[in-house]
């Protein structure tokens, strides 16, 4: 294992986030906090509690998941797309490192950045809303698993994408709707039976449900189902990345 190389890529990516701290860290934290203020404290105070949890507290896990997802995807996709676009990828390809090490550098950095954003949102939320965490170990596990899985997904997107517009479309047009319809703002039980079934095809439901369970012990689907679904998605992404590397797709002529 070539630690100098991995650390060079990792530090490069983290330094980039640091330089653009406004976009990569502050922006998602601020915009998510607006949700707490509007939906949590303002509107939420007029709403009843769900399964014994106040509405403001109920939406926190979903909101954290939502920004974790979008941040992981955009960090990782941009991280690998930009060198492809500018041509500086030549240096990474010519370096004495394996694809796995390249992946560790880029995906590790992207996942770290989105984890920091997720944790900052949790800390900031505490200023507005009272919440507790029943299963801290599972909470951290869900955070890491999600950050890594969706950073991998973002990495794939960054390799497949043909332009900057495509990089933005996927998080905006696919992930945000899935997240909104994924039970962030409501419990699945509140939906009519038909829509409950439809919802089960939305992968984000399993993330939000499992994550919320680690906070309050309540969930829409069983915790085992949640963990299995994330793992399945993780394995799927790993297989695709492995295929990309094996063929040099979009990386080498």
């Amino acid at each position, binding site marked *: 294992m*070539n630690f*100098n*190389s991995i*650390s*060079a*890529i990792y*530090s*490069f990516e983290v*330094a*980039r986030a640091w*330089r653009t701290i406004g976009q990569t860290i502050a922006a998602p934290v601020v915009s998510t906090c607006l949700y707490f203020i509007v939906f949590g404290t303002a509107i939420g105070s007029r709403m009843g509690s769900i399964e014994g949890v106040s509405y403001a507290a109920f939406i926190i896990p979903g909101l954290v998941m939502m920004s974790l997802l979008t941040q992981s995807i955009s960090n990782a996709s941009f991280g690998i797309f930009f060198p492809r676009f*500018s*041509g*500086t990828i*030549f*240096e*990474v*390809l*010519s*370096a*004495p*490192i*394996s694809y796995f090490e390249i992946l560790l550098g880029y995906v590790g950095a992207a996942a770290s950045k989105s984890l920091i954003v997720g944790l900052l949102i949790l800390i900031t939320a505490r200023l507005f809303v009272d919440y507790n965490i029943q299963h801290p170990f599972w909470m951290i596990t869900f955070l890491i698993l999600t950050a890594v899985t969706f950073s991998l997904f973002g990495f794939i997107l960054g390799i497949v994408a043909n332009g900057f517009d495509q990089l933005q479309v996927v998080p905006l047009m696919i992930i945000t709707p899935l997240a909104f319809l994924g039970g962030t703002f409501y419990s699945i039980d509140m939906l009519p039976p038909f829509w409950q079934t439809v919802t089960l095809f939305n992968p984000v439901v399993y993330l939000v449900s499992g994550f919320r369970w680690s906070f309050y012990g309540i969930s829409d689907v069983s915790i085992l189902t949640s963990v299995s679904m994330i793992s399945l998605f993780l394995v799927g992404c790993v297989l695709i990345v492995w295929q990309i590397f094996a063929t*040099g797709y979009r990386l*080498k*002529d």
Partner: protein
Amino acid sequence: MSIISIKQLSKTYASGFKALKNINLEIRAGEIFALLGPNGAGKTTLISIICGIVSPSSGEVLAGGHNIISEYRAARSKIGLVPQELTTDAFESVWSTVNFSRGLFGKPKDHAHVEKVLRQLSLWDKKDTRLRALSGGMKRRVLIAKALSHEPEILFLDEPSAGVDVELRRDMWNMVRELRESGVTIILTTHYIEEAEEIADRIGVINGGEIIIVEEKTELMQKLGKKELRLQLKTAMTKVPDDLFDYNLNLEADGTELVYSFDAKQEHTGIAELLRKLYKKDIDFKDLNSSKSSLEEIFVELVKEQ
């Protein structure tokens, strides 16, 4: 001893275009090798394959005795590449981008070495400048610094003199010679015979994806070093005067141009003597110019010879 050994290397791009056709080439340890060829000859493709940026379609390449595919770590850690395109991270500083390259190639931090390289390339006072604020020539230097940051044994310079002024070119050639002194093997590509002649020990000529000839510079220059002296005559001649027969002169342009071909490498070109004789014979000319055979003509010549 060969430091790079290329055997039956071919490359067909996904478009179906055959960029390299059965290349065989040995680069000797410690030499400066110039790859000379016109646009689209396949120079960059060849270098990119050796460095791991492009996949070969068939054939085998060893760098420092290591197969570039099955032993890519050992092979690539010996190689530094200065690409043809000025691709840099616009928002990085000179200092951070050069240190990044060193780390990327698996070397532990060594600020003293990076400083030495930057000073050598007159980049030290620019070390905190963002790359986008540098001129093209400066960016070229940064790319050289990046390639040297990890102390390669083999250095590729893909068209190093493109967009570079006289002074930087001179500095660059001095640096290349110093590197060779310290044992680094240097392979550079160029369009210009003069450049290959100035710097290289050996020259390989590539055209249409094929290596046409590989020779010691001095030998190749003898073959390529033909020059022409053209005299625009005041009055047209019908035939070359008999007593100038030894000079191998030709009449062109309806007898208004007298063309003398000579070997520019020879001490005694015979030009002064020829002009004196013409003067004595009262053959007047309006103008004269001398030219080297163009790359194009040389290729035609070389291909014919084979």
